[in-house]
């Protein structure tokens, strides 16, 4: 049974056209993370929510926003996608903060920008 679900698995958007990626979890975890993974690179943390508390990485572009309306769902909004934003976007959850708890990853959404 899927525990971290990402929709859609593949997303194509046009340059500059806003796009939203979705993540949901059935684990009731407190923390939800969004990572960006470009081709042949390691995932890079964009931001995370601890409950409703939003934590943005210092080098995450302003173009990227996130919403967590409830425990189960978290959204990644890209306001004006550029060609450089084409990547795999991974959502993860954990019971508590990293270092003490395992992170469970979704299958990812591959974003193409045309």
């Amino acid at each position, binding site marked *: 049974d899927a525990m*971290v679900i*990402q929709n859609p698995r593949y997303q194509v958007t046009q340059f500059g056209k806003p796009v939203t990626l979705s993540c949901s979890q059935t684990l009731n975890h407190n923390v939800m*993370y969004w990572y960006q993974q470009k081709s042949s*690179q*390691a*995932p*890079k*943390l964009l931001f*995370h929510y601890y409950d409703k508390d939003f*934590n943005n*990485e210092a080098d995450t572009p302003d173009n990227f926003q996130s919403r967590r309306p409830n425990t189960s769902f978290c959204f990644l909004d890209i306001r004006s996608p550029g060609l450089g934003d084409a990547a*795999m976007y*991974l959502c*993860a959850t954990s019971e*508590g*903060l*990293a*270092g*003490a708890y*395992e*992170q*469970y*990853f*979704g*299958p*990812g959404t*591959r974003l193409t920008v045309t």
Partner: protein
Amino acid sequence: SQELEQSPQSLIVQEGKNLTINCTSSKTLYGLYWYKQKYGEGLIFLMMLQKGGEEKSHEKITAKLDEKKQQSSLHITASQPSHAGTYLCGAATNTGNQFYFGTGTSLTVIP
């Protein structure tokens, strides 16, 4: 910032051979994680190490964290084609607010 260097960058082994992947940091690691990723898919959790000198095994995979908590190794015994993929180490900062991945090691197992 925390940086994790993995070596080797890529590895090609014959089925049945043993192999080791290393993950090194210049800073103390807090919660060292090992993940496996197949191309185009999400990350699969393998193991988490927290204490210096800790060692964990699951099936044919063993992970160790050194006493100083700055280096970890992942050892696969009698490799199989199913072990193929990219292996990533990851670690948290001491506050738990940031998480970093290593540079990754691509493993190919030739039948």
